[in-house]
Each structure stands twice: as C-alpha cells, then as structure tokens.
C-alpha cells in the first residue's frame, strides 16, 4: 500500500505529478550533509561558486531579454557577489579551519551581511538581504536543494512555506498542485493558488520533510490526502473524481460567457481578484468581467528594493489591457507589520492590524506612493483603470490622496508622459469607521468596495486565525450585514457604484442578499465566479428581496445562515 499523508485540503482538485521542493528551510539538509576532507570541501565550494555564478548569469540574460533591466541589474550584482574575491577568500579560510563547505558559505555570507547591516545608510543595510540570499543559493547548490527551475512537465510545489513571489513567477500551466507544511489558509501563497484554482493542501507540519524531491504523488485538494507514489490502481480509483472535475470544468466553461443575471433580468457584475497580470488568463476563463481587486502587494513583495514607476506601469498596463474594456480596480499598496518588506523599514508592532499599514504608510512615504499613483495614471491610458485606497477611516485621507494625484498629474505633464485624466478614485470599506461614514465619504469618492475580511474582523473584534475565537467570525453577523447595507445604500443615494472584494462575495448565498441590497459588483477569486453566477441565475430579484427582508429580521449569524441554506 502506498503511503498516504494527510493535511488540510484548502483548494479542491486532483493533481497527479512530480514533487518539486521549494523549501526555504535548509537546516535539515545541513544536518544530513556528509562532508569530505578539506580538499574535497574546497573543490565543492569552488565548483558551487562557479556554477551559481553561471546560473545567475543565465538569469541576467533572460531578464534582459524580457526587458526587465532593473531586475537584471540586481541579478548581475548577485552574480558578482557569488564571484566576489572577498567572499571566496573568507569561505576558503573557513573550510581550511575545518568547517564544511555549505556551512562555510553561510558563515561567510552572514559575516558580510552583518557588516552591511551595521552601515549608516538604510540602502546598504538592506543589501544584507541580497548577501544572505546569494549565500543561501550557493549553500543550497552544494546541498543539492533545487531552486525552482522548471522543465516541460507541470509539477507539484512543496515546502514548509513557499514565498509568494516563487509561485507568482511560475505560469499556472506549470503548477499542478501546492503542498505546504504550515497551516495558514490565508497566507499569500494560498491566496495566489486560489486565484488560479491550483489544488492545494496545507498544514502537513513536520510530515512535509518526508516528501522527497521528484517523487510522484497524487494530491486531493478536497480531502487533504496526499498519496505517495500512487499505483495505477489508485490513480484509476481517482479517475471518477477526475472525470467529475472535468465535467464541472466543462460546465463552468459553458457558464463563462453568460451574464450573472436573475431570472427577471437584474444583473450583477462579477469581477476577479488578482495578484498580478499573470492571474488574468485563468480569471478570464472563468468569465470574469474585469478586475475588482488588483492586490499590488505582489508587485512590491519578493524583491529587494522599491519597484520603480516603470516596473509598476508595465504590470498594471498588462492587467488593464487584459480586462478588455472592463474596469480594472487597482488597490494601492496594502502592506503592514504582518508582511514586512526589507526596504520599507516597518518597525515591529504589537498590533500590526491596528498599526502602520496600507494607506497610512502610503501617505507617510511619498517616495513609495507617488510612483504607484503615477504608474496607475499612465497605465490608465490603455483601458479602464480605477484607484482604490485600502484601510481608509476618514475623509481627510481621501483629500490628501486627491492632492497627491493632482501633483502626480502635474509631474507627468512636465515629464511629457501620457496619462489618463479621468481615473476614478474609490475606497475599500473595510473599517467600521468607513462603513458608518459612507454617506459622507460618498460625496468624495467615485466608488466603494467592501473588503469583508477586514470589515468582519474589525467589527466583531475577532482574529480569524485565532483558533479560540475563529468560530465567532462570520460575514452573516447582523452587525456586519447592517454596515454593508449602509454602504450600498450610501452609494446608491449618491449615484456612485458599490462592490465587494472580500471573501463574502464568493459565497453564493451571501451574493443573493448583496444583490438584493443593490450592490453593483462582486469581485472574488476567479474560480468562485461560476458558483456565484449559477446561484444568481437560479433566482428572481423578487425572491431575493423577500429573503433579504427576512434575513434582516434575524438576530444572529447562525440564524441567518440557516435561513439562507433552507430557503435559496
């Protein structure tokens, strides 16, 4: 019987393929490393330095060909670090003293990194990250830990944690599935996998260390089962499930071009949440009508310095073009102490969710915010773009941003760069403050988009990853429903549109009552679109209105949920 591991299935789907380890943790490999004599270790270190420099040289070439000179420049600096005489000298001295090759590399890079960390200038301090990165790359090479470099075959990515940038940079068709040791279902790697409907199992814990590179597995993203080296018989057993998966896919494909319209002709726009333009092809195949949330954090993460206006412009332009006439809502950077960036220098905070994050950072750090605003305005020339601000709590923030946008336009005019003059400005309604204030805010913005993940968390004072209280987390809580209703009504009363881009929008039952409240747009991870559309197409707006009226009379989230499940 093949070995079966069990984790938590978070994104349904069957994947059969070979494992590619993308582990960030090399401690296990270090412990298992069998060192040779000094001469052998010197050769290993020297070979690794040459080999890594060559790999990096290849990366530089590819990046240049892809017209990404900034990243190419960074990779070029990495290559030089791998060939640096000071680094090499330090590594060899350590090997001579009896340290094995991988540890000598790590120690030498750590020494250099520390040197940089103690420098006065923030830029140089942050270079420590690069030096450690290069050191780890060389050590990994010696240890035989593969960098995720893809062949023709699609693989199953596996690691305790996987850096979001690693998944983000691999085309969807190359990834069959994802396996994570850590258990968070809201980490960025999972969010990206969700946007692309990649079968995913998380929470394997230490068992993840037992999965070897290149081994064949069968992964069931629904049950959380991972069958190691499945026999043909087992694969055959899964054929039925695979068959259903294919049928469902075919059905969804048929649904894709149809509108999300009630039986009596009330339409809702269904848009996609994306993390980058690479998510767009998959999103379009599910029939998304534009993008309701472009999470620009991914443009900022997984790199060592602030993305330039040019880098951002290219990323936004591509997504906007793919929206083909539909709106592409670009949310400005939503980063805080919970996902720190080397170049941002965010101090450690006791309460990152109540701390210096999102619009608060953008308004304090114009050198970050201006290039983003300018990039969006410029990209707006290629279709319909919109700017959306996260974590707003007051009109003041909106006014400040408007001034900055005016300044950005002025600068672009001086620089002779083309830009769209009429890019709508909206806010995320994700704090109770914003929701309560929507009748006032509506006079200052062009749209609202309700971010339920945070709105629920802030309204109910519940951290949904805290196991002791997560049962209290529900978007059907009457307080949350009332805030949402207030927001949608304020939008309608003031002639602006309202949408939702939180997880609630992907709940078909919630979609029905949101539609009845008069919401214009629902944005969700694209694979959820067919289910929501199916529900909306099955009901009349009259019936939905009746259901909403009844739901608003109910006293708690359980009662709401029960009523919805029973009646629609």
């Amino acid at each position, binding site marked *: 019987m093949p070995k079966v591991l069990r984790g938590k299935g978070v994104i349904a789907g069957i994947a059969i393929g070979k494992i590619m380890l993308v582990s960030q943790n090399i401690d296990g490999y270090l412990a298992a490393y069998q060192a040779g004599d000094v001469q052998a270790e010197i050769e290993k270190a020297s070979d690794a330095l040459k080999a890594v420099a060559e790999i990096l040289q290849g990366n530089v070439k590819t990046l240049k060909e892809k017209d990404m000179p900034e990243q190419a420049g960074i990779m070029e*600096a990495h290559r*030089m670090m791998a060939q640096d*005489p000071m680094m090499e000298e330090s590594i060899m001295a350590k090997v001579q003293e009896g340290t094995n090759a991988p540890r000598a590399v790590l120690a030498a890079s750590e020494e250099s990194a520390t040197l940089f960390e103690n420098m006065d200038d923030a830029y140089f301090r942050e270079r420590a990250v690069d030096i450690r990165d290069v050191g780890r790359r060389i050590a990994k090479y010696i240890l035989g830990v593969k960098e995720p470099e893809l062949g023709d075959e699609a693989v199953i990515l596996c690691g305790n944690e996987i850096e979001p940038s690693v998944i983000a940079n691999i085309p969807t068709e190359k990834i069959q599935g994802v396996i994570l040791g850590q258990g968070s279902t809201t980490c960025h790697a999972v969010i990206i996998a969700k946007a692309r409907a990649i079968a995913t199992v998380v929470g394997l814990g230490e068992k993840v260390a037992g999965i070897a590179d290149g081994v064949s597995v069968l992964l069931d993203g629904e049950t959380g089962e991972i069958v190691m080296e499945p026999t043909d018989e087992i694969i055959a057993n899964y054929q039925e499930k695979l068959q259903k998966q294919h049928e469902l896919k075919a059905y969804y494909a048929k649904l894709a071009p149809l509108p999300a319209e009630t039986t009596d002709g009330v339409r809702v726009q269904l848009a996609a949440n994306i993390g980058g333009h690479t998510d767009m092809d998959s999103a379009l195949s599910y029939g998304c009508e534009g993008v309701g949330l472009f999470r620009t954090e991914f443009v900022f993460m997984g790199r060592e310095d602030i993305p330039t206006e040019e880098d951002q412009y290219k990323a936004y332009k591509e997504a906007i073009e793919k929206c083909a006439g539909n709106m592409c809502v670009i949310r400005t950077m939503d980063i805080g102490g919970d996902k720190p960036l080397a170049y941002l220098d965010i101090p450690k905070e006791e309460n990152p969710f109540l701390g210096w994050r999102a619009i608060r950072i953008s308004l304090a750090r114009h050198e970050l915010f201006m290039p983003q605003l300018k990039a969006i305005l410029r990209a707006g020339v290629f279709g319909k773009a919109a700017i959306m601000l996260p974590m707003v709590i007051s009109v003041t923030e909106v006014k400040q941003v408007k001034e900055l946008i005016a300044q950005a336009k002025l600068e672009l005019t001086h620089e002779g760069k083309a830009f769209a003059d009429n890019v709508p400005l909206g806010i995320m309604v994700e704090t109770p403050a914003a929701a309560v204030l929507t009748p006032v805010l509506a006079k200052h913005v062009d749209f609202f988009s309700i971010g339920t993940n945070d709105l629920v968390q802030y309204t109910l004072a519940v951290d949904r990853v805290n196991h002791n209280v997560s049962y209290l987390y529900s978007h059907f809580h009457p307080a949350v429903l009332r805030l949402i209703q207030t927001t949608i009504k304020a939008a309608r009363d003031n002639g602006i549109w309202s949408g939702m881009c939180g997880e609630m929008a992907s709940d078909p039952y919630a979609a029905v009552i949101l539609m009845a409240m008069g919401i214009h747009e629902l944005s969700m991870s694209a694979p959820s679109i067919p289910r929501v559309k199916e529900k909306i197409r099955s009901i009349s707006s009259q019936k939905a209105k009746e259901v909403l009226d009844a739901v608003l009379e109910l006293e708690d989230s359980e009662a709401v949920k029960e009523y919805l499940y029973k009646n629609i």
Partner: protein
Amino acid sequence: MEAKVVIANKAGIHARPASMLVQSATKFQSKIKLAAKGKTIDAKSILMIMSLGLVKGTEVVISAEGADADAAVKAIKDLVESKFGEE
C-alpha cells in the same frame, strides 16, 4: 598610477553602479584599488565596494598596478564621472 574622483550620482554606489564598477575593473589585468573613508579595497570585489558605503560627494582615490594600469584608472574614473548613466 592614481586619480581622484568624487561620487556624483544622486543615489551613490548602490548595487547597480557597484556592479558596473566591478564589470569595468575585471576587464583589466592590473590590481585596481579604491581608497575612501580611510579604507583601501579591491575594486574587483562588489562586496568590498559596497561595504565602503559610497554616497554622493564622497572622494575616492583610484589606483592601479600592472601592465594596463593607466587604462584601468582612466576607465574607472570616466565611469564614476559619467554618474553611471544615472541622475
């Protein structure tokens, strides 16, 4: 052979200019050294160059020893003075 230059580009010697310096230096056989802030380092080492933390306005003495020393010093001097194609 020796020459004096002042770092003129706004951002100073960050990763990109540092790699351009190394690229230029490694083209020559001579031993090339940079001296600044009381330290003298190998111009073929990106780590050492960056560890000097050369910001705009820092004075740097370029020196070289070897067959192509003159050309080496001139090339590095020109590169710094060209502001590495930056602002």
